[in-house]
């Protein structure tokens, strides 16, 4: 049996094991271990088991992952977002669908303090959705907007997905972070435009607010949003101003979040304990999966599967756009059944050589990948964000309503995606400034 055949059998068995609900990490480890043992010998297989985990965990850049997770969970558990949402709510009170647009804005800002879409969605669902339901917004709009805007968490820096992508593709994490800013803002603006137009034509979706603009209240709210600019400037300003690296920024951000929460007297022991537990569990499970992915990368490399796939795809067309569209199709389909980190780490070992073969800019592709993975987060049946919302609202809104509410937003995401693919400069302009 040729190495290539063993490689393809490995890919096939991987999906078989995943169907049994085996954890993605273990499935990757087993397939890689057995695959290398069959292809070469057991000594080589034992070699990857002993060498890879320690050298992978001991990668300085990866320390950013627990730190950004901690920052996001602390911001979420201590209600750092409430002030921003209330301020935007007041400013957009007279705009059709103003509450929904305020939710998009608050999600976008929260995303700048959180590296994770799930944390963003969970935090905003507790604040924004009940408010919209009270204002008699249609439940599918009220939930759809938060499920979709929560995905800004990974596109707007900092971002756990970008850190992992940067490590696996050997791209600069700082450049990826800054590349995500414009696409993130565009996504949010397109959402807001769609909400405004829809609600203007169909006022039943979102009854007009009767709230009058009150200057005193405006200034009062303005004074309560200071934590946000401080946190965002502290983290992103520090990275792009060159005071510290994206890796160090995570620790600075987490420390700042704790300081701000204690100044606002919202740092309870319970909030802290729960943030730490969430961070530890998330970190350990992400790394477990990543160790599997790194072993799988080695197995794939030895088998020659990525090379064969590269040849096959390049023989269809060597046009960058065609290749990106093929990869996008693959992500959208697989994204329906596999969650974002898993999908990215499963596919990169195979796809990376294809992208390099077609000479595709990996920063640009990174942003497109993350946008695609984020669409996967809100597409049923395995749209994690849908379930996060559903459980955060304790079943007050039907899952079907949440799903139908995201349809419009997914359509807008596809529009954003077309823009990102058609105009690489949207992603690459800011990094090019940084490089000079």
């Amino acid at each position, binding site marked *: 049996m040729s190495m290539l055949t063993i490689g393809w059998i490995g890919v096939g068995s991987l999906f078989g094991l995943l169907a049994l609900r085996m*954890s993605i990490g273990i499935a990757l*480890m087993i397939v890689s*271990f057995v695959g290398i043992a069959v292809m070469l010998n057991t000594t080589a297989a034992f070699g990857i088991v002993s060498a890879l985990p320690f050298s992978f965990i001991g990668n300085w850049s990866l320390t950013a992952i627990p730190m950004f997770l901690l920052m996001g969970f602390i911001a979420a558990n201590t209600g750092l977002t409430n002030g921003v949402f209330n301020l935007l709510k007041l400013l957009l009170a007279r705009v059709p669908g103003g509450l929904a647009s305020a939710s998009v804005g608050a999600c976008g800002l929260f995303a700048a303090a959180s590296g994770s879409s799930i944390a963003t969605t969970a935090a905003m669902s507790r604040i924004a959705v009940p408010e919209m339901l009270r204002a008699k917004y249609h439940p599918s709009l009220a939930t759809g907007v938060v499920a979709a805007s929560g995905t800004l968490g990974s596109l707007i820096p900092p971002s756990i997905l970008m850190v992992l992508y940067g490590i696996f593709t050997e791209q600069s994490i700082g450049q990826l972070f800054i590349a995500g800013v414009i696409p993130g803002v565009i996504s949010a603006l397109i959402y807001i435009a769609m909400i405004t137009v829809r609600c203007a034509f169909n006022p039943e979706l979102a009854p007009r607010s009767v709230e009058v603009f009150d200057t005193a209240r405006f200034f009062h709210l303005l004074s309560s949003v200071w934590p946000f600019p401080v946190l965002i400037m502290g983290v992103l300003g520090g990275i792009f101003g060159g005071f510290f690296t994206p890796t160090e920024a995570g620790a600075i951000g987490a420390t700042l979040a704790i300081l701000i929460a204690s100044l606002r007297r919202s740092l309870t022991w319970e909030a802290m304990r729960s943030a730490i537990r969430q961070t530890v569990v998330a970190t350990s499970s992400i790394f477990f999966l990543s160790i599997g992915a790194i072993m799988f990368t080695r197995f794939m490399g030895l088998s020659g599967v990525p090379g064969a796939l590269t040849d096959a795809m390049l023989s269809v067309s060597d046009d960058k756009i065609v290749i990106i569209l093929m990869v996008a199709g693959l992500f959208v389909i697989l994204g329906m059944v596999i969650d974002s980190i898993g999908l990215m780490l499963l596919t990169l070992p195979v796809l990376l050589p294809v992208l390099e073969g077609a000479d595709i800019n990996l920063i640009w592709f990174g942003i497109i990948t993350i946008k695609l993975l984020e669409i996967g987060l809100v597409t049923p049946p395995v749209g994690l964000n849908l379930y996060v919302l559903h459980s955060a609202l304790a079943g007050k809104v039907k899952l079907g309503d949440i799903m139908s509410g995201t349809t419009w937003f997914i359509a807008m995401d596809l529009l954003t995606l077309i823009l990102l693919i058609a105009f690489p400069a949207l992603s690459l302009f800011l990094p090019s400034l940084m490089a000079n």
Partner: protein
Amino acid sequence: MDRAFRKLTHGLMLVGGLGIILMMLNITLDVILKVFWNAPIQGTVEISSYYYMVAIVMLPMAMVEYDDEQISVDLLFNHFPAWLKQTSLLITFIATAGMLSVMTWRTGLDAVRAFIVGQVVMGSREIIVWPARCMLPLGFGLAAVAAIMRIVMLLLGRPVTKIHETDSIT
């Protein structure tokens, strides 16, 4: 037995949590000292990568396995009939215990080797790494035990899966 093991895994998770806080403080202090006084804390990179991170990843691993918090795909599984669910879980747990045992054994051998030669990493300061290397067999080993405990729980008909939506990530 069950409760003692749960306490142990929970305790190790808390040590991992302590690692997170220590790493945060260490890196923050290092940046502040570097930016303002140009006096970084020697060895921050090495200690963070080899000690804090290894502790944060490895020590909670048993709890993550035991509490069914690993990332998996349950789309097809949810539509399985009961007997197939049980069979899938049994195969999964046995395979998990087996793979983790291999990991424990090999990383254990490495830890012993590192201890014997007194392995160090060179950075701004020399740092011994065998204590960090010992955390790998400890983490993988206890996670293997957790998988075995789940086999027993499954055979006794006790719940072994949980719906965990909000604790997941990105």
